[in-house]
Structure formats: structure tokens, C-alpha cells
């Protein structure tokens, strides 16, 4: 019987193709925009988690920032000893910690001068952050402990400076903290930049590279900002709390004066933006679904009137109230679900097209599609109730007399 009703419904919808399509328009727009926004959100979330998969999802920066706007104190800065102490105290929870140091330098090789942003790193940094070495090697413990003038350069910068990507064994001259010295290239790496991240960052004119942290930081230095990687799988929210408390105590500050900036706080703000956007588009979708539903109700009422005689015949031949009810409910549900399917195709198609043009991997979840089509069918059932009950309640004699 359900199958009968469905074929009957498809028949009736096909009999009035243009009318049916126009009726579905509201549903198409509603479902299409929901699918589009949900898929855009999922795509963004996927991309951001993808970016931070490269960067490391447990990365955090910690510093003191007086919450009352007062000046920084000398004790608010970190020392190398502080970092060593933290490393010892949190050795079970923190896999890597450093002074987050960086220097912009001008490297000179013969007539070539290239600006580099050199990042100071500890020996096990490559364990927490992937560096894709193509020539030579990464910096090792010997380089760091021995404060060796060894660098690892990004391939593009190496090529610009030395004319070849394979610059291992070559050296350049530069000035750091007023000391001019020669630095040897021990490795060259290739940076695989996420297209989205590249878009956000823009192209920086500085080339990149790494050198031992110990060259940039001296034992009596003051470090503003510490960088750490918590153990993989750490719940960053609870860790952030505990760690901030610890820092606040050791620096004689309040908890609010410690800023713990992590990827998950970044993800949170993305969700916030997407949430706002979703709410706006969700509102549009709700209105179009409402309008679409009313359109379906209207066209079903027209259809019920047009088919009064058919209803009379069916009742005379033995259709019960419920049979007629279900027939028309099925029709409005299918009409609406077809709108939903077209909406899904349109919405997903647009997102896919946009994603392809921007070179992104688009995420469209099957569950979202199933829910969207199911929901549109429900809209059809809901707005079909009134017309269907009108049809079911018709008096067979009156209906048979209808011209």
C-alpha cells in the first residue's frame, strides 16, 4: 500500500511538472542553504584541524599579561632556569618547551643578500613539529648544547641565497645581536604550506629557517613568551587551567594575569564565527522552509479540490478516511522530499564548485544529507496534514457529483 501510494504520488507530481517544481522552490532554497552552510562549516573545521595537525594540536603559548592593565614587572618575564624548572615539573605532561625565540636577519653570500626569519629551537623540536628535510639533516642535540652556528634553511630561501636548493655544507655571513659571524647550512627542508593557511598568512617577504635556541637565548636573558607542546591527547582546556595556575603561583600573579593561548582556543573562536554565520543562514533557511511548506500546503489544497471527483470514486470503491489521508500525506511528503533532494544537490554542488575553485578539500557529510532530506519530508507531512484531512473528510456523494 505504501508503495502504491508512492507511485500514485509520483504520478500526480509528474502530471504537473512545472507547478510541482515551483512549489518545491522554497524547500529547495531552504534545504540548499542549510546544506551549503553546514558543509562550509564542516569544510572550515576540517581545514583548520588539518592546519593544526601540521602545527600540532597541543601547541600553546604562555605569557603574563596583567589583566588590570598595569605595567609588566621584571619578574613577569621567564628565565632559562624557569623554563628548565617547568620542563622538570611537567616532564610527564609537556613533550617540548622553548623560549619561543626568533630573529630576523640578513644573510650574505657573495653578492647575494636574503632576509631570513630564523626560529630558535631545542633539539627535540623535530619530534613535535614536522620538518621535511630534503638535503642534509635536522639540528641535533650537539648543535644546541654546543651553541654551534648551524642552520637549517627552507629550500626557496636556500636557492635564492646560494643559487641551489642543495646548500648543505655552504655557509653565509650574518649579524645577530651585533655579532657578525659565519653560519653553516647543515640541512634544507621543504615547506608544504596548506593553501588555506597560505591564503590567511599572505606571502611573507622573509624566508624561513631554524637555528639552535641557545644562540638566541642567554642564561641571564628575559623571555617574554614560552612555547610548549603538551603530550599528544592532552585535554588542553584542563591542562591550560592547571598550568596557568602553576605559572600564576610561581610568578606571584593572579590566574587571570596568565595568558594561555592554544589551538583549541583558536578552534573555539572559529566555531564562534561559524556559529554566528550558521544562525544567520539557519534563520533564512527556516523562513524559506516555512514559506516552502505553506506553498506545499497551498498546492495540495488546489490538488485536493481538483481531484475531488477522484476522491469520491476512491471512497465509493472502499477507501477509508485513513487511506485517503495517507495518499495525500505521501504526496506532499514526496513533493517536499524531492525539493529537499534538489536542494541538497544544489547546495552541495555550489559548495563543491566553490571548494574546487579554491583548491580546498570539501567536506559534505552523508548524515547531513540524510537529515536534510528526512526533514524536508517531515515538512511535507506537517504541511500536508490540513489538505489531506480535507480530502479524507469529503463526503463521497458530494465528491462524486463534483464537476
Amino acid at each position, binding site marked *: *500500500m505504501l508503495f502504491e501510494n508512492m507511485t500514485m504520488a509520483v504520478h500526480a507530481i509528474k*502530471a504537473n511538472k512545472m507547478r510541482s517544481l515551483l512549489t518545491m522552490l522554497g524547500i529547495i532554497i531552504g534545504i540548499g542553504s542549510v546544506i551549503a552552510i553546514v558543509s562550509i562549516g564542516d569544510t572550515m573545521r576540517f581545514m583548520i584541524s588539518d592546519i593544526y595537525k601540521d602545527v600540532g594540536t597541543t601547541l600553546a603559548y604562555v605569557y603574563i599579561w596583567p589583566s588590570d592593565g598595569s605595567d609588566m614587572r621584571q619578574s613577569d618575564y621567564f628565565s632559562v632556569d624557569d623554563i628548565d624548572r617547568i620542563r622538570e615539573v611537567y616532564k610527564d605532561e609537556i613533550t617540548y618547551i622553548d623560549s619561543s625565540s626568533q630573529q630576523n636577519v640578513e644573510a650574505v653570500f657573495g653578492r647575494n643578500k636574503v632576509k631570513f626569519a630564523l626560529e630558535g629551537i631545542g633539539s627535540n623540536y623535530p619530534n613535535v613539529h614536522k620538518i621535511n628535510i630534503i638535503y642534509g639533516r635536522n639540528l641535533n642535540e650537539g648543535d644546541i648544547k654546543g651553541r654551534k652556528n648551524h642552520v637549517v634553511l627552507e629550500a626557496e630561501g636556500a636557492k635564492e641565497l646560494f643559487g641551489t636548493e642543495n646548500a648543505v655544507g655552504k655557509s653565509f655571513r650574518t649579524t645577530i645581536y651585533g655579532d657578525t659571524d659565519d653560519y653553516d647550512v647543515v640541512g634544507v627542508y621543504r615547506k608544504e604550506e596548506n593553501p588555506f593557511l597560505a591564503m590567511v598568512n599572505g606571502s611573507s617577504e622573509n624566508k624561513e629557517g631554524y637555528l639552535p635556541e641557545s644562540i638566541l637565548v642567554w642564561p641571564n636573558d628575559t623571555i617574554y613568551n614560552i612555547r610548549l607542546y603538551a603530550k599528544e591527547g592532552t585535554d588542553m582546556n584542563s591542562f591550560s587551567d592547571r598550568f596557568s595556575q602553576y605559572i600564576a603561583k610561581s610568578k606571584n600573579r593572579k590566574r587571570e594575569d596568565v595568558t594561555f593561548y592554544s589551538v583549541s582556543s583558536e578552534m573555539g573562536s572559529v566555531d564562534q564565527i561559524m556559529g554566528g554565520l550558521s544562525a544567520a543562514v539557519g534563520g533564512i533557511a527556516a523562513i524559506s522552509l516555512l514559506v516552502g511548506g505553506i506553498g506545499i500546503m497551498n498546492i495540495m489544497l488546489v490538488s485536493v479540490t481538483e481531484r475531488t471527483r*477522484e476522491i*469520491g*470514486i476512491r471512497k465509493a*470503491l*472502499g477507501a477509508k478516511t*485513513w487511506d485517503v489521508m*495517507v495518499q495525500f500525506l505521501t504526496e506532499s511528503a514526496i513533493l517536499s522530499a524531492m525539493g529537499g533532494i534538489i536542494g541538497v544537490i544544489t547546495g552541495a554542488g555550489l559548495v563543491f564548485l566553490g571548494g574546487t575553485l579554491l583548491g580546498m578539500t570539501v567536506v559534505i557529510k552523508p548524515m547531513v544529507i540524510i537529515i536534510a532530506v528526512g526533514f524536508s519530508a517531515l515538512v511535507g507531512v506537517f504541511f500536508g496534514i490540513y489538505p489531506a484531512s480535507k480530502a479524507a473528510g469529503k463526503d463521497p456523494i458530494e465528491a*462524486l457529483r463534483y464537476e
Partner: protein
Amino acid sequence: MWKKKEVIPDYITQNVSEDLIKLVDMVKIYDTGSIKVLGLKRVNLTIKRGEFVAIMGQSGSGKSTLMNILGCLDRPTMGHYFLDGIDTADLPSDDLSAIRNRKIGFVFQSFNLISRTSALKNVELPMTYAHISKKAREKRALELLERVGLGTRYEHMPNELSGGQRQRVAIARALANEPPLILADEPTGNLDSASSVEIMELFSKLHNEGATVVLVTHEEDIAAFTNRIIRFRDGSLVSDTPNIPVSKREKEESEEPEEPEEPEEPEYQSGDALC
């Protein structure tokens, strides 16, 4: 949610009465709000299984009112209507639907086939509402179309068929659930005389096979096919007489050699050749 359990009271499915139709002091009043119209006045009538009855009368005499009540499309205002022993007066509308589905086959003046739906699907319809499986439905519908001489036209849409053919589809549909009663309200009213004769031949055949047929007509020629003619005037039953059907009369008449041929005869044959 889509399927509601089919509950048909036993009394609908069982044949209990020799008197297929029994009207007892049955009155039908139409209450149009401002005035009350007396549709039928105190009708007493019994029709036994296997009868072939014509209801006659002028326009407005109450024929359709009677047919609606006999067809369980409407309820008597007063008195009782027993169909196969079931008192239909106080039944809820879904029970009346079930009764119409199992016990009554309708044939209408304006055919009332569902448009844009094949002959086969139209014939299947009463069986669909009787929850008969698709396979069984199709098989029986094909047999029925065969029986009314439309075995090769089962895929045709109603608008691709002539009036006579449409009415034969409707008769096949009326027979779908093997109902004990066939009700036909002016079944030849929209047909030319050739098709009319064909249709009446078909009803005679059904009657000879044991069906109970009640039809409304205002044409004496049509009523002549039946065994019993009941006349109404102004909502009252005014006469109820047995009739010798034309088919039998022809036989008797053909035994008298001096009688010339009936004028309908050539029309009847050309009509037969049409299908």
C-alpha cells in the same frame, strides 16, 4: 505509521441473508438548512439474491437517493436498510467503506474511471483497498478485463477508450472483489444505443452467472432487459412488477416465423463488431 491494521467486522465478510436488500419503512429527508426536502417516503422493498432489477421514474423521483442508500454512500434518515442482513443505519463511515468495498460494485453513468490511470490500475483499485497482494490483483484484473472483452487494452488510459469500452472497464472494476451486489445508476445514460445494448448484454450475462444487479434507468428499452421493474414517483414506490427480459422474449418471438426482425438488431451487431 503508514499502515493501519485492517479490522473488518465479521458481519461484513460473511454472507448471512437470502434477502440481499431489505428496506423497512425507510425515509430519506435532505436537510438543506432552510427547507427539508423529502427524498424518499417510507419505502419497503426486498430484493433477493440473483435478481436483476430496474428502478425507473422521472427526474427527481428519488432514484439516485435510493441508489446512494443502497450503495451505503448515504444513510437513511428513518427506518432501516439491511444489506445482506447488516443494518447499515448506524455504522461509522469507515465500516460503510469496508461494506462498499466487499459487498457492492458500482457502475456510474459518467463511468468515473480515475483519469491518467490505466484500465488495469482502475480495475485493481477496489482490490488495493481490500489489501490484496499486487500479484493477485494484477492477475484478477487481467481476467476481468478479458471477461468484459478488453483483454488487450489493459494498458490504455480512460481517455484512449470509447464510452462503451470505458463502461466495460467500470463493470470489470465493479466485479473486482466479487461483490454480491452490482449497483448501476443510469449505466447507459452516456452511451449510444449500440454500446447501450452491449452493456446491457453484459449485465444480463452477469445476472445469468448469478450476480444480483440493480440498475436505474428512465429508458423502457433498458429496463426491458431486467426481470423486475420498480417505479418511483415523487419519492414513493408506485409499482413493482415482474418482467420477462428481452433476451427471453426474443427467443419466444423467434419461434413465431411471421414476426419481422427487431429494429435494434443491426445496431446491436455493428456495436458488437466495434469491439
